[in-house]
């Protein structure tokens, strides 16, 4: 087959243009796919990073909020315990002033009655009723021999004070109301201006019958008293002792109607885990929503034994600083043997039905958490701790009731930093975390919404990019553009090659005719002044020369 200039030119031009174009088109097509896939992957990764950032920010916010709100809750409960303890201390201080003032009164029934009638305070008796209740249930003048010389008592049946003729020799404990009272002998140790405040005195109430706040409002109440005593002087001469019996209900009122996680409410029950109580300076429970936890006398005049027993030496015994440290170690970390003893004793006490709590000796039930609070009180501290009680994990804020010799008061028998004891305010942990948990839940909901929005956005973006990438239309566009370009290049190449080859072909055809003897054959018309034009001119000259030589001119 003859290879013409046109073919050569065409092959050459198509080779140098169309093949690279096709290759470029192929790579462009492939690149568009991989670029799309890579963009989809990048979008997914970016979205996931965004999602992770949103989740991290959410978690950090939750942790920060919980910490901040827990911290706020801790401070709020600690402050509430502190304020309550302060109010109790002030109340006791007022009573101290009362007894000192009362010692200066005329020793007659009328004066005593008048004094007692001015001393009353509102008490929340039922959910709907608050009434004024006498602070003191009795006032007695005892002579130096221990014989009651004048006694005015409150008769609840007629709701007024009456002069009592039931005068006894209180120097003999068995003559006293609770059969074992030693108040008189304690009073004998007092100097002018000094005061003695007894421990809580009252009859024990059993587990089954006791008042349990709103959980058992018709239960038997623990009705106790605190005795205040001070010497009475006529001039410089001591003539006897003045004794006031303070109704413990007034101390109860400070803690019985408080919900540490809420507001005030009548007889707030202990079953919620959120309640307040008082532990006396000797570690015995003296106020509690469940009255059976308060220590009292049994009918035989003996004091009920503690729930888990009580150690010896008792914390009410005088102990040195060193001994206190030893006791703390022993009470907070009892031996296994001691724990077993506590547990066995608690079972015995339950069977008897009387389980007053001795706070420092409750490790068998609360772990060291509760005894730790008692030792904080013994050091005169304020703070908080966590322990488990009756299956509930509790946060408890404690505050020492700063009434006693250590705090500048005249009461001689409260002579340690423990003061009157301490107020405990317990909060059930889920309730305690309430504020923080609510915020955490809100943040979590927001974070989850944000996360789902981001997730959805990632999926949509990825899907869109993948769809666009895999879209045949996009690929076809690239393919068609490549094809069109190839066509244009091919046509252009053909025309260009033809513009070169055509004049040469025509000239060649004319030369063929000349060589066949046809000297008059017209040569192709010359366009331009390129090499073809020159070749045409040269052929013209050759033909002219040949004609002349052959005599045809």
């Amino acid at each position, binding site marked *: 087959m003859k290879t013409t200039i046109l073919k050569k030119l065409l092959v050459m031009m198509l080779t140098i243009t169309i093949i690279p174009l096709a290759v470029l088109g192929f790579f462009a097509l492939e690149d568009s796919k991989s670029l799309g896939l890579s963009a989809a992957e990048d979008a997914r990764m970016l979205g996931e990073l965004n999602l992770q950032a949103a989740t991290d920010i959410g978690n950090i916010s939750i942790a920060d909020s919980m910490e901040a709100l827990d911290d706020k809750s801790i401070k709020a409960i600690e402050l509430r315990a502190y304020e309550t303890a302060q109010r109790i201390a002030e109340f006791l201080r007022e009573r101290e002033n009362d007894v000192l003032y009362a010692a200066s009164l005329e020793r007659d029934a009328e004066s005593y009655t008048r004094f007692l009638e001015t001393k009353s305070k509102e008490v929340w008796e039922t959910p709907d009723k608050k009434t004024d209740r006498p602070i003191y249930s009795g006032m007695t003048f005892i002579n130096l021999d221990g014989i009651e010389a004048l006694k005015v008592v409150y008769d609840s049946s007629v709701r007024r004070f009456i002069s009592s003729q039931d005068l006894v020799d209180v120097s003999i404990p068995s003559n006293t109301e609770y059969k074992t009272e030693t108040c008189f002998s304690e009073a004998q140790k007092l100097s002018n201006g000094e005061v003695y405040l007894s421990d809580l005195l009252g009859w024990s109430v059993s587990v089954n019958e006791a008042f349990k706040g709103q959980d058992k409002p018709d239960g038997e109440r623990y009705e106790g008293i605190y005795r205040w005593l001070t010497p009475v002087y006529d001039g410089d001469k001591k003539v006897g002792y003045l004794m006031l019996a303070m109704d413990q209900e007034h101390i109860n009122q400070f803690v019985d109607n408080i919900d540490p996680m809420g507001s005030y409410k009548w007889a707030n029950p202990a079953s919620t885990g959120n309640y307040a109580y008082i532990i006396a300076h000797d570690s015995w429970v003296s106020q509690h929503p469940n009255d059976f936890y308060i220590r009292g006398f049994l009918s035989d005049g003996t004091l009920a034994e503690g729930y888990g027993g009580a150690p010896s030496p008792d914390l009410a015994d005088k102990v040195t600083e060193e001994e206190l440290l030893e006791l703390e170690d022993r009470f907070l970390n009892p031996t296994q043997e001691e724990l077993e003893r506590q547990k066995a004793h608690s079972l015995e006490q339950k069977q008897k039905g009387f389980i007053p709590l001795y706070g420092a000796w409750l490790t068998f039930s609360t772990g060291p958490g509760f005894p730790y609070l008692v030792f904080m009180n013994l050091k005169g501290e304020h703070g908080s701790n966590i322990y488990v009680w009756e299956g509930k994990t509790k946060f408890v804020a404690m505050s020492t009731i700063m009434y006693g010799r250590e705090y500048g008061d005249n009461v001689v028998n409260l002579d340690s930093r423990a003061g009157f004891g301490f107020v405990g305010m317990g909060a059930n942990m889920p309730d305690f975390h309430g504020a923080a948990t609510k915020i955490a839940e809100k943040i979590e909901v927001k974070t989850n919404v944000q996360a789902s929005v981001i997730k959805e956005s990632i999926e949509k973006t990825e899907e869109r990019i993948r769809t666009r990438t895999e879209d045949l239309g996009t690929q076809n566009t690239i393919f068609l553009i490549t094809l069109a370009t190839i066509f244009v290049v091919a046509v252009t190449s053909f025309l260009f090659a033809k513009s070169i080859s055509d004049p040469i072909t025509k000239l060649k055809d004319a030369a063929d005719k000349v060589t066949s003897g046809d000297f008059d054959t017209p*040569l192709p*018309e*010359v366009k331009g*002044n390129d090499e073809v*034009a*020159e070749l*045409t*001119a040269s*052929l*013209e*000259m*050759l*033909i*002219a*020369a040949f004609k*002349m030589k052959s005599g045809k001119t």
Partner: protein
Amino acid sequence: MAGDFMSRKKEKCKELMLRFFGPANSKLVDLMSEEDCVRKCRQKVAVLLGEDKAKLFDSIK
């Protein structure tokens, strides 16, 4: 004018080249300079067609 004079030279050359050879050669004169066209055309004519015909270029001034 010199330009007109020189153009006439090229016109004359073109005319003679058209007569002796053909349009392609006549057109080639356009590519020559005014100074050289007479000499170059005369030379080609002399070589291919003889001195007699070439002398016709001598009259071109």
